[in-house]
Structures are given as C-alpha cells and as structure tokens.
C-alpha cells in the first residue's frame, strides 16, 4: 500500500510538450466520440437490420476474408523469398512490393484496370481466351483489396522471418528435410504468430478499402458495394444510415485491435 517515492527534481511533463500532446490526443479521439454522440441510437436497430446493410456487411466480410486468403497464399512465399534468398535486385523487389503501401489506392485501381480491365494488358487475353471479366465483379473487389492489403502481410511476415533463427531450417535439412519441408514443418509453425498478425492487419486493411475498389470494381449493391462504399453513398442521401454503418466498421476495428492487443499494445 506504500505509494511510490516521489521522483527527485521537477515532476511532470514540460508545457511545450504537454499541450501539443493533449491537442493531438483530442484530435484523434474527438471524431470517434462525435460519431458516438451523433449516432441515431433509437433508429439504430432498424437501420442495421435493413437488407442493404447486411448485404454490404456480408460482402465486405467475404471479400476481405478472400483477399486475406489470396494475400496469405501469395504473400507468405513472397516474404520468405525476400527474407531468405539472396538474389540480385532484392532491394528493388522489396521496394516494388512495398509500393502499394504508399500508393494512393485510387491509382492502384486505375493500374488494375490497365492490367486486368477488358482492354487491359492481361485482361484482354483473359476476356478473349476464357471469357473472364474481372472489373466490376465481386472477384474484382477481392483483387482490388488484395492488391492494397497484401503488402501489409508481406512486410509483417518478412519482419518475423528475419527475426526467426534460420538455423532451425538448417537443423531440419541435416535431418533430411527438403527446403520446402523445412519451411512447412519448422519455419511456418515458428512464425505463425507473425503470419496471424500480418493476416489480421491485411484483413483490416481490406475491409476498409475504398479507392481501389470503387475504381476497379465499381459500386453495385450486392455485387461490389462493400461497407466503405455503402457509407460513402449513404452519406449523400441518408446521413443517419452512414453513421450507423460507420459504427459497425468502428466496432469491427476495435475488435481487431483488441485481438492484437497482446501483440502490439503491450510491446516494448
């Protein structure tokens, strides 16, 4: 029950630091508080049970999950390549992989149209050979989200791989494991927490994806209209619905953060 002894010297933070710090905190928290304050709590149940909301929410969850799956299947091997194999131009490859992180998503959407659109570099062959059209479809949503979200996963998994001791893989090979077996049975279980964290990060990013999606996949209710798109649209004609939808996304974000709490909030 003893209080900690007072620290010697002048306690407390100096004002030139304290004031901007508090202002920054208010700046970050105030909009979220406003969202809660202005929420139409009374009409919330009917707003959230409307068919359109469920449709958008379901589409969002399905597409974000599919985009995460794509990111895992392609991104984990890519991260392994960047972390474990020395090759010329590795720095360049890493920069290219990271580019979508900083690229405005709408530019990503335009780029995807140029590549996979009906007249795109690859898209025209997909169309003429397989009759496959990607833009303005649900698959297009998944592609747009994966394009934006995968770098988060790659960066996260590569960091974990670099921190993991590569000698475990060596130990596995001396026991007769091929490099792939060593990866599957030793490395992957060892980096599982990092892969999970990267997947959650990518999933959250995919769920909130707006610019690339609306550019590449459009905004068709039930087909390509995900939650962020629905929020944006609702804001024009039905602000209360927009707030309600935003609260749903906020709740999902808080849940994700809570899930990652052990990993990041308590770090350092």
């Amino acid at each position, binding site marked *: 029950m003893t209080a900690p002894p007072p620290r010697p010297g002048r306690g407390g933070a100096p004002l030139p630091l304290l004031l901007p710090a508090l202002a920054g905190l208010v700046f970050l928290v105030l909009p979220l508080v406003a969202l809660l304050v202005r929420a139409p709590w009374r009409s919330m149940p009917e707003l959230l049970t409307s068919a359109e909301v469920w449709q958008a929410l379901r589409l969002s969850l399905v597409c974000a999950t599919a985009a995460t799956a794509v990111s895992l299947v392609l991104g984990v091997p890519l991260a392994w390549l960047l972390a474990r194999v020395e090759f010329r131009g590795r720095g360049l490859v890493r920069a290219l992989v990271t580019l979508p992180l900083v690229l405005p998503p709408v530019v990503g959407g335009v780029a995807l149209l140029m590549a996979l659109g009906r007249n795109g570099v690859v898209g025209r062959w997909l169309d003429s050979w397989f009759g496959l059209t990607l833009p303005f479809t649900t698959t297009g949503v998944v592609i747009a989200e994966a394009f934006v979200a995968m770098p988060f996963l790659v960066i996260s998994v590569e960091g974990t791989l670099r921190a993991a001791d590569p000698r475990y893989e060596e130990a596995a090979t001396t026991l007769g494991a091929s*490099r792939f077996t060593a990866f599957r049975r030793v490395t992957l279980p*060892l980096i599982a927490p990092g892969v999970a964290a990267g997947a959650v990060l990518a999933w959250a990013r995919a769920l909130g994806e707006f610019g690339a999606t609306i550019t590449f996949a459009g905004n068709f209710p039930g087909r390509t209209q995900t939650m962020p798109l629905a929020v944006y649209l609702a804001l024009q004609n039905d602000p209360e619905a927009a707030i309600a939808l935003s609260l749903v996304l906020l709740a999902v974000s808080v849940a994700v953060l809570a899930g990652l709490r052990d990993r990041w909030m308590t770090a350092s």
Partner: protein
Amino acid sequence: MTADDPAPAAVSAPLPAEGLDARLVVERGAFRLDVALSAAPGDVVALLGPNGAGKTTALRALAGLVPLSAGHLRLDGVPLERTPPEDRPVGVVFQDYLLFPHLSALDNVAFGPRCRGVGRARARAQAAEWLERMGLAEHAASKPRRLSGGQAQRVALARALATHPRLLLLDEPLAALDARTRLDVRARLRHHLAEFEAVAVLVTHDPLDAMVLADHLVVIEDGRSVQEGGPSDIARHPRTDYIAHLVGLNLYRGEAAGHTVRLDAGPAITTTEDLTGPVFVAFPPSAVTLHRDRPTGSSARNLWRCEVTGLETHGDQIRIALTGELPLAADLTTLAAAELGLRSGTPVWATVKAAQTHAYPA
C-alpha cells in the same frame, strides 16, 4: 583448384575404405580454411582450437551447410561434395541444440525418420526407443523449453542419431551447460559416443572436453591444422603457444646441443634429454620456483631474473605471469605468494629443475 577436385569416378577405383576421408577447403573473404580429416568407424575426432579458428566452418562443411571451395569429402568411400545436406548420412548436434520449440521431445526425435520416409507411427515408436536409451522416456511429451540443459542435449543427440548417420557432428556439445551439469553430461556423452559405431567429429574450444571425449585431436588455428594426435601426446608435446597455454605448459622453441637448449626467446635452458637441432622445451608452471633474492647453493641450473606482471587465482593456486630474461608462468600456493610479497612489478629470481623440463624435436 582443379588439382584438388576428386578424380573422375571412372579413373579412381572404388574406395573400400570405411569411415571419413576429407580435405575441407572453404574460402570466405580473407579467411581460408584448409583442414584434412580422416577417421575410421568408431573413432571420435575432436577439432580443438580458439574462437574464429574455423572449427565450426569445418563442421558446417562436413554437414553440407557450407559449400567446399576445393578439396574432397568421402564417407565410407562415397563422395559427398555435391550432395545437399538433406541427402547426406550425417547427423548434427548443434551448439545450442536447436530443438524445434513447437514440437515435443518425441516429435523432435521423430522428425528425422519422418523426413526420411518412415511412417508416422513407426517414426514415433523409434523416437520413443531413442528417448528411452537416453533415459528421457518420461520427458517424451515435454516441449524443449521445459527441458534442462542436459536433457535438451540428450534429446538433440537422440534426434541426430535417430537417422542412423554414418557421421555424427557435435558443435561445442557442452558449451551451453553450467559447470555442475557439465561433468555429468560429459560422462554420459562419452558413454554414448563410445557406443556409436560410425565416425563422430566434435568441435570444442575446451581441451578437457576434447581429451575426455575424443581419441584423436586435430588442433586448428587460423583455418589450418597445426597439430594432431592422441590426447596425451598433444598434452605432453604441444607445438604452439595456444595448445601449451591450453594444457597449462610453458613452451619454448630453441636449438638443442646435448643437454643445453639455446632458446629463441634468449637464454639457454638445461634439460635431461640429449638432443640436437630444433626442439621444443616445455615445463609446467608448477615446476617454477620463485625467490626474492638470488638463490645460493641451489642445484637448479636454470636461473632467470624476472619481474612479476600479473597474478590471478587458478584453482587453489595463484598463477604468476613473469617477464624478464624468460617470459613464463609460475604456479604458487596462496601462502607462498603471500610470503614472497608478490605484486605487479616485484623483481624475482625464477628457477626450474632440469628434471622437470621436457624437450622434444620440433
């Protein structure tokens, strides 16, 4: 380099020789390792040397984790230079064991057989047998972090042996253990190595580990083998300062003429051996006697003027480092050191009886 390459198989007769026959050349930047090793099945060879000498590189080259720049590697007559590590009949016990942290002790041991195509149930049964032999049956389900250092080391040994290697490699097998468990683990390891029917090569910087565990020592300094032989031979006839220091001997090089050796370091030393030509002279620090005043009537003909440069406890003795006419180390009891009032800078006379020196051809 082509001269070092193994001759084409068509030309060389198949080698009937069993065991290990290797010349390991690894070049990395300015560092060059060039060591020849050979051993018969049942032999335990220790690579002994200071840190950075290239011992671990040699081990990694044997395992295939580092490619050979030149030289050859044959195991039971089969060339292995180009064989990837997963296809070599080699087992490795790594310095910090590298047990897979997400697998139980049993699954760690079963990992090798599983990778080599043994079915799951059979691999686990074999692993259980190995753990039983190592006295670890009750720890089969434990994760590595729950094992003590000694237990982890035995699991690592079981894991390496479970693939029935023809060459067992151990990298500093006792370095990760504290002094108390070390004694016990060393004795157990010696027992297991004695049972092992193929070649074992271990790497250590501890001469005691090397001498207890191995029947053949290869001393490596700066990437080259500087001396090899049986443990007692190396302990008695060190050829470099490093080994002499390791086994606790004063070692000098000189030119012998009868019982007198003119040392490269300066003075002459009288020995019992009668030799001519270049020789080594060695004597233990305990053979040195120190006096504050020049001894009179002493029978010791080896008498030098020295100065104390350092004192450190060495077991229950005090080891005194001396410079002067002859740089040397002397061991005194604490009492004797106190009576002489030795401290850094004290001038002393050092004597060594000829009977306690040992000279041998260089």
